[in-house]
């Protein structure tokens, strides 16, 4: 694609991420995917929570909403319901999405609005300088776990599969082509799509979660002969989150469910023609 269309999505706000932060790669991949999809920036709403990763909307020329910690999904659903024509992206960190925001994920998935949710999973709290995140490996020593974490990590891929998402994939900036590709595919998927990105925190992240390690570990799902139309098989693979690093599409619903906004539009259409004018609403209370 031509760099003009590419740069069209880059804002003039200079990223304040640490040099080498994986999120640089993610925003690049998003520029590429958006350029490929080809919607103009003003027709895109890009919502995030709070965190290093959540700064990402500000680095694009889309309408951005850098909201509060953990609430990007509810806000994004309100936007999509208010204006279904928009392309709505949601992004944030592992903590934003699966710790404080974890309660919103299953409901966003089961409602199945056509959103693309990108989590930058660095297994750490970056912005607040290095505390445990829900995806931190058991035993990890951080400033809040001086003697090692006592908890098994959250499994974003398995959770979202169990929630019934129609599209679930993983990527890493260690493979920019693959990352841009899954993000583009997620955007094009009609319904809720989830992309977990292994995006290294070079300043506070675990040593095993850096680009070098990714390059070594990485296994393309395409290469391991996984059938992305089989949810149970995807769940079985996803259970290896943390030990293995599979990239690509875990699950793609061959027969995508109807989206929530589609059902809403039908309802508005059927009931719409019975609508009295708003000015006459009080007539509903005439006694009989």
């Amino acid at each position: 694609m031509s760099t003009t269309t590419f740069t069209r999505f880059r804002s003039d706000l200079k990223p304040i991420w640490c040099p080498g932060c994986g999120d640089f790669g993610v925003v690049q991949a998003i520029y590429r995917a958006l350029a490929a999809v080809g919607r103009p920036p003003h027709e895109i709403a890009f919502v995030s929570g709070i965190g290093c990763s959540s700064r990402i909307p500000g680095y694009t020329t889309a309408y951005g909403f850098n909201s509060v910690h953990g609430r990007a999904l509810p806000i994004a659903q309100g936007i999509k319901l208010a204006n279904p024509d928009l392309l709505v992206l949601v992004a944030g960190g592992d903590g934003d999405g699966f710790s404080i925001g974890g309660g919103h994920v299953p409901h966003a998935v089961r409602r199945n609005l056509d959103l693309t949710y990108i989590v930058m999973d660095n297994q750490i709290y970056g912005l607040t300088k290095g505390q445990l995140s829900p995806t931190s490996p058991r035993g990890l020593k951080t400033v809040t776990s001086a003697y090692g974490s006592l908890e098994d990590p959250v499994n974003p891929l398995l959770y979202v599969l169990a929630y019934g998402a129609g599209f679930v994939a993983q990527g890493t900036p260690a493979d920019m082509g693959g990352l841009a590709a899954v993000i583009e595919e997620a955007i094009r998927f009609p319904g809720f799509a989830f992309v977990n990105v292994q995006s290294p925190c070079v300043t506070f992240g675990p040593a095993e979660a850096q680009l070098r390690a990714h390059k070594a570990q990485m296994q393309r799902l395409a290469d391991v002969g996984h059938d992305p139309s089989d949810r149970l098989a995807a769940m079985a693979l996803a259970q290896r989150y943390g030990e293995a690093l599979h990239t690509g599409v875990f699950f793609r619903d061959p027969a995508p469910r109807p989206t929530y906004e589609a059902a809403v539009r039908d309802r508005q259409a059927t009931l719409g023609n019975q609508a009295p004018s708003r000015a006459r609403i009080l007539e509903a209370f005439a006694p009989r």
Partner: protein
Amino acid sequence: MTSELVIGMAGAGGDGIVSAGESLIAAAAVEGYHAVLTKSFGSQIRGGESSCRLRISVDPILNPGGILDVAVAFNWDDFLRFGAELPVGGRTIVLYESATGVAPDRVPLAGIVLAEVRPVPIGQMAREAAGTEKAKNTVVLGLLAGWFGIAPDAILGGLRRKLAKKGAEVVEANDRAFSAGLRHAEGNPLAVPRRLEPSRPSTSAKLLADGNDMCAAGAIFAGCEFFGGYPITPSTEIMQFLGRELWRYGGAVLQAEDEIAGLGAVVGASFAGRKAMTATSGPGMSLKTEMLGLATIAELPLVCVNVQRGGPSTGIPTKSEQADLFQAVFSAHGDAVRPVLAPTSVADTFTVTVEAFNIAEEYQTPVIVLSDQEIAQRKETVDSIDTSRLRVVDRRRPTAADLEDYARFRLTESGISPLSQPGLEGGNYLASGIEHTERGAPTASGEMHARMNEKRLRKLDPLKDREDLFEVEGPRDAPIGLVAWGSLAGAAREARLLAAAEGLKVKLLVPRLLYPVAERVYDSFFRSVRSGLVIEQSHQGQLHRVLRMFVDLPRGVEAFSRSGANPIRPEEILDRVRQRAMALQRVREDELQPQE
């Protein structure tokens, strides 16, 4: 003949007390009476005790009224459970189920000499006439129609319409039960008849609704296109009404997973350019605190309704209280000011909700509507509202000129900056809860922070001159001044009229805008005041405290307040007004004493 009646009924869950009340008020409305129906239940979801009180009058009504004219006890245990909610007195006529075996001179209403006591074999009459005890409430409706002349035809007509779908037998059985009651009353007239005057040809067609209905209707009138919320007593009916209606207007309703998500979706919808609202009660308001703060700094319009109930915490979900004012005004962290409005009646809830949307859109701010359970759930006849007089305001969107060099948070003179929305080319910006520059870039500059805080507060100053959001009744120069808000405004209005009738010089200020505090309005109201009361249904007297923050109240102005679930009655207010009038009297006399 009497110009009004207050009727209270109580019984077990199955007795159909509430549906009897509904039949009565529907009939009253059809006949052009003014009426108020309040319901009260035990904590049990079903099968528990329940009660209702109906005040019906030929004149406009300001509140649910006090001592009962007519008390109906389906059984005494349940009746007594409602204690202060069904107050009986010397003028009360008592009807009760004679099968309770209680002798007329033994009714358990200690130490009250009742006007009249009528045991009636209600259950037996129901069985005989309709073949089922289910008809007990219909028998009672017949009795009430017969003894007190309350619109028999309208009642029966309503019942028939209601039961039609259940088939002819049911309708006829019901007819028999009703006329059994009617005949019993005609056969055994009251010693001192007390029949309701015929209604006056009412100037305007009446509506029948409760506060939650009116709130939802107001939202629709104001152009609301999105509702996101989570069920909670006593606000849920707002979501339920909109869940039936809003789709018709191209809107949508989302029952979210919790209050945070509900308000989050509202914030998103507002960001996307739609008028949006949520409704909840205390616990939900507490959860929404952070999201409300986001709307304040992102300057996004939205309406958040809090139908107050007993607190703190889960408190008493089914009873009314006015103890969430502090929270409505001050819950946010940081220097955040948001407008707070309160309706003072069922009808008022419509216009106040419309006004809330207007203020939200005009000033790009969340607006909180503080309703309360009393107004929200009581059914009332309402003189139809002339909606042609109501404005509907839309947010200021960027002009072509604005878009040439768009800055979302531009520091304008008014403090209001044109608000664009996704889809609008050239209006692209970054909304955020982080302090930002005029163009929406994150900043940690203390100087910019100060200017943005100043802007966000300054833009609301015009509200302090909105005298139309205040009502003053009574002589301008009255030395005694009352202030009352929300559902208590009704009791205060009634008390003021009673006081005036006694020749006491009293005025009343009813604010619909509670915050920001309109200092000038209060100053001019209190200028003549030497003694006064701020009347509130909260332990702390919260409005009185909030007023002290901004207004130099005259020494003699104090709070008359108490916890909820035990409404302050007009008579109580009148008492205190009398005392204050006498106190002033004494002072004046002292002043007139010759000094030796």
